[in-house]
């Protein structure tokens, strides 16, 4: 177990939480790494029966044609709840149960991690409270309903801009006072050690399946593997089992937002490209690449995709970028929206806006980057993003978008008149 990844990682939290991190590190070692009491067996079985794993690795015919290569889609959109997030949430809630905790808390931005945690907590009969920025509760209403339906408390956070950053801070505050009975289910490969590794290990099932499925389908390895990255759990899970395969190129696609430039004055980055444009700093318990001003104040990030809209990124991913094992690429809002529509129309899969960044990147990638076999992880489905896509498509230049005039009053009957 590494507490750090090169210069990144560590445990930058209040002293009150340190014993909990020690306890968690111990539990991680015993249950996850050593499969004590058959923890990993139970986790795998529940991922299968409750979560719907394995998910398919689908050869995408139209994309393959378009890019002159074989494109395979890893279908995490088919996981229960609609995203890869359940892999981690289920693992952590189960771990909390093994640790004898009585309560679960979590933060959520887009609501995907919150809904996944609420589902896992209902499934495993654990009381659960989700912190969510006030702005996000309002713009992600359906996900708030879903969490409530699964009997989770949803606590809006009224601080600051009311988004993910504030929700994480608030969850850490809750944890600092409830740590003895409560486990904090963090939603990505971020936060203090051992969270980045723990979450990575739970998400590693993605690349384990990809490797086996692609081997079965083609007898070989991919040339390139593409995943969108916000905090980086989807990317780390997708890369994990290829890290040691030098022939496999790994691309982490970040949100380029409207621009890679930064407004220091207002403390705003119109993007979430912390791997590409961030600098070393300490955020939410770990040293990693963050979007910050020259004083070290964390900036507001921006992306059309709520799930990528975060000023930090997992420390291991920062390290893998620094050592050039992983290539970070950023895709702007418009290209992501085009990718969203392209996948919906040509493959019949409506992706999450997060995933749409990875899809959008294919359009700009060179044949050398893609190679002959590309795997792209569809990290989630886009049902949660319908309203956003409608609004954003209207204000951006997205020729791929369909007309949405169904709700006008002309009728299809006229054709027979």
């Amino acid at each position, binding site marked *: 177990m590494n507490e750090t990844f090169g210069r990144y990682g560590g445990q930058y939290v209040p*002293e009150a939480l340190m014993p909990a991190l020690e306890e968690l590190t111990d539990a991680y070692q015993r249950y996850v790494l050593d499969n004590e009491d058959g923890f990993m067996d139970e986790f795998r079985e529940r991922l299968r029966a409750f979560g719907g794993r394995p998910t398919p690795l689908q050869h995408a015919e139209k994309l393959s044609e378009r890019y002159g290569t074989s494109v395979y889609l890893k279908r995490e959109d088919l996981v229960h709840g609609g995203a890869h997030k359940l892999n981690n949430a289920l693992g952590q809630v189960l771990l909390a149960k093994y640790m004898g905790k009585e309560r679960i808390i979590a933060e959520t931005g887009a609501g995907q991690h919150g809904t996944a945690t609420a589902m896992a907590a209902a499934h495993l009969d654990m009381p659960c409270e989700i912190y969510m920025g006030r702005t996000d509760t309002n713009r992600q209403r359906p996900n708030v309903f879903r969490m409530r339906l699964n009997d989770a408390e949803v606590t809006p956070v009224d601080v600051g801009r009311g988004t993910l950053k504030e929700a994480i801070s608030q969850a850490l505050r809750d944890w600092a006072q409830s740590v*003895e009975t409560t486990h904090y289910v963090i939603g990505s490969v971020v936060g203090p050690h051992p969270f980045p590794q723990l979450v990575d290990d739970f998400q590693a099932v993605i690349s384990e399946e990809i490797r086996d499925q692609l081997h079965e389908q083609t007898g070989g390895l991919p040339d390139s593997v593409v995943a969108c990255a916000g905090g980086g759990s989807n990317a780390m899970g997708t890369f994990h089992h290829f890290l040691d395969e030098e022939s496999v190129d790994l691309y982490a696609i970040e949100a380029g937002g409207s621009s890679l430039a930064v407004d220091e004055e207002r403390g705003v980055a119109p993007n979430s490209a912390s791997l590409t444009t961030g600098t070393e700093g*300490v955020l*939410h318990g770990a040293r990693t690449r963050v979007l910050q001003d020259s*004083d070290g104040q964390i900036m507001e990030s921006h992306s059309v995709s709520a799930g990528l809209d975060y000023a930090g990124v997992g420390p291991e991913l920062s390290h893998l970028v620094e050592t050039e094992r992983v290539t970070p690429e950023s895709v702007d809002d418009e290209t992501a929206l085009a990718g969203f529509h392209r996948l919906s129309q040509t493959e019949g899969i409506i992706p999450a806006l997060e995933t749409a960044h990875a899809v959008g990147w294919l359009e700009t990638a060179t044949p050398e980057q893609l190679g002959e076999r590309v795997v792209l992880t569809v990290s989630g489905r886009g049902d949660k993003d319908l309203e956003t896509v409608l609004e954003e498509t209207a204000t951006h230049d997205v020729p791929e978008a369909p007309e949405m005039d169904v709700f006008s009053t002309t009728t299809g009957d006229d054709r027979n008149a």
Partner: protein
Amino acid sequence: MIGMRESDITAAFEDGPAFIPYLTAGDPTFESSIEYVEALARGGADVIELGLPFSEPIAEGPTIQQAIVRSLEGGMTPERFFEFVEALDVDVPLVCMTYYNLIYQYGDEDGPRPFVERAAAAGIDGLIAPDLPVEEATPLRTACDALGLDLIFIVAPTTTDERLTPLLEHSSGYVYVQARLGVTGARSDVSDRTSHSLDRLDGDDLPAAVGFGISTGEQAGEIVAAGADGIIVGSALVDIVAEGYENDLATEETAERLEAKARELTAGIIEQGQPRSERL
């Protein structure tokens, strides 16, 4: 505290239990905040903790979060903070409380040293970084030692005995005893864990100051009676600043209220207190 001369901060505990107020510097403005800090000094502060606001204050409750928002909106930056310290007319030791990222980013080179240098030059006597556990603190510890600043760590109710030893070893100035679990914020109950924590510290060289949730002179007295060498009060004071801000009170009026609150707390301590030298 490893074989060093006694610092100004530690010395402030000599004549009886110390009163250590906290304010966020620059809340709500640079100028008014200076008056507030000076009022606390007049009210009997033995040491003053000054918050340098960070955008992600994960260890603060809502009261201090709001103070941080007000201060940042008023234009507070690390550089302005040092100017603030330099502008203060108080003669008690000053402790800067801020998050590690601001310490780490300050200046042109990576690492905490430039921040510590500047803090020392401005007249800061010690630092508290609430998100920096002792495991990650070596670079800052080194810089503080080099420049003669105290580095104060927090002992939490959850701190295990195994953690206590290295924690005390790296501490200087005083030990910040967290009275209860949770983040900062005024509370009317005082956990009985406090006395347990104090018991564990018995025999340590450093004075133990208790914070988190103290808001009245009576409470302060109880805690001192339980054996504390000092009390730290933050949210109860910030509440007064917030009230003044929200009700548009004159700076002097808020300053007077702060001074009165400081006197109440000092009185509570004195009633119960005896000089540290006599208690050791």
